[in-house]
């Protein structure tokens, strides 16, 4: 199981390698929003921003789940096994969480500004 986890991490790393520069930029931008929200905005509304971020995450999750089979060259008709559904849902949840985490700091700061 540990080996499969390690292999999975390597797969993700190799897949992201060609766009590592873009991911780095996005990560920097996100860190900047995080720092801003944490240090420069003592009145950032983390709790108030969570539902909105949650909705964005949910939208990302649903969109990913709906589009995933087509994006990989397959279809919903080919989701035959429990593992197929688990995989599709897992990917969608992962994307949803990423959307939530990505937008939460910015929205917290913006809620403060509003």
């Amino acid at each position, binding site marked *: 199981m540990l080996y499969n986890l390690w292999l999975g991490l*390597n*797969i993700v790393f*190799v897949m992201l390698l060609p766009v590592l520069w873009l991911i780095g930029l996005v990560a920097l931008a996100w860190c900047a929003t995080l*720092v801003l929200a*944490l240090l420069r905005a003592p009145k950032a509304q983390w709790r108030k921003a969570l539902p909105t971020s949650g909705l964005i995450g949910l939208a990302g999750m649903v969109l990913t789940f709906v589009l995933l089979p087509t994006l990989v060259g397959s279809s919903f008709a*080919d989701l035959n*096994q429990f593992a197929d559904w688990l*995989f599709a849902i897992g990917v969608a949840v992962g994307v949803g969480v990423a959307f939530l985490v990505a937008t939460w700091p910015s929205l917290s700061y913006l809620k403060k500004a509003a």
Partner: protein
Amino acid sequence: MQPSPLGRRRLLAGFAATPLAAALAGASASAQARVRTQAHIVIAGSGAGGIAIANRLARGLEGARITIIDGREQHLYQPGWTLVAGGIWPMERAVMQHNSRYHPRGIEWVKDYVAEFDPTANTVVTRGGQRIRYDFLVVATGLQLNYKAIAGMDEAALGQNGLTSVYASPQAAASTWKLMDAFRRTGGRAVMTAPHTPMKCAGAPVKVTFLLDDRMREVGTRERAEISYHTGGAALFGVDVYHQDIGRRFERLGIAHHLQQRLTGIDIGARRATFSTFNAGQPTGEVNTVDYDFIHVVPPMSAPDAVRNSDLSWKEGPFAGGGWLEVNRETLQHRRFPNVFGIGDINGTPRGKTAATVKGGAPIVAGHLIRAIQNQAPDQKFNGYTSCPLITRVGSALLVEFDHDGNLVPTLPLIDPLQDSFFAWTMKVHLLKPAYVAVLRGRA
């Protein structure tokens, strides 16, 4: 309640420190594991196996001299060729970067091919006449496609007159799709073949057959075609449960299948194939000719002549005929020359000619070679892990995994290896190539 300034600063410091700590721990651990040696290791072949071994040895040894011998400069992602042949990938996706991009730093690359192995003298001789002495040898040459064993066959004619073969090259895979696409619009007689010999990716002939059928159904022309599958082997697949399953699928899809039918001749201009019937490896004398509009030729395969004609090959037993490398199937060490190891398709072991076998075998070979340098016996056993995501139609595949003895060894217990799977398809089309790169770099 707001976090205190001190708490926020500690949180940010933690984020920054964690990857640094992990990197330092990793570097320290790998430095401690390296074995000091002056050994000269020659790796014959710069395919998946050769490069994977080179990277692992470079990481595990300090001071060793590593030489890779291979005349091919472009690295080819062969597991992608059936995807090219089925019109799923463009050809470019199955051609990778220059081999040097995957070699570890500091190795010597001899851009030639081994013409002769002399294990008694611990020497290899290249086609160009260069004699290279070694302390340890890894044979990673891959195998040889014997198109010449089919009378009338001409590799240069692939891509024309309905003649296809996914194995020859990425260009041949691309022309297979071109002709498949043309055939599915017109229909006719399609003849799909497989040899009687061991072959790399034994599922490929079946995959191409399933893809042809599916692509025809996609455009509604399947009824215009007669598809038949002829294998020189005694089974549709080397693992009985899949032989049975594929047989049932062929019947359901209306694909006639014939066993022990060896493609022994072809008239390319007349589009006529000649099959000789065999029984338990012996010709029965029965010969059939079949006219076709589309044919997928899979040639008999063997070890390259340089291995076959050397002392390294099996001299008796089921692997002797193909000249395969005589290795212990568990340790992958040569049975008579302990300073020689084998990786990949060249090995004379039951089954196991896939990239997944290289993934499983590379750490074994590297580990055992490093132990041999230290005069230590092998300490691991390789079970012959083989994997072949068997595409059954566009969008779905079977996740086929088995060991030396044909036992199913699924990696993920949730996946039914006999049921079509979207995940297996996604893995084949999108995840296996990154995994392959990780294996090349010795990281997985």
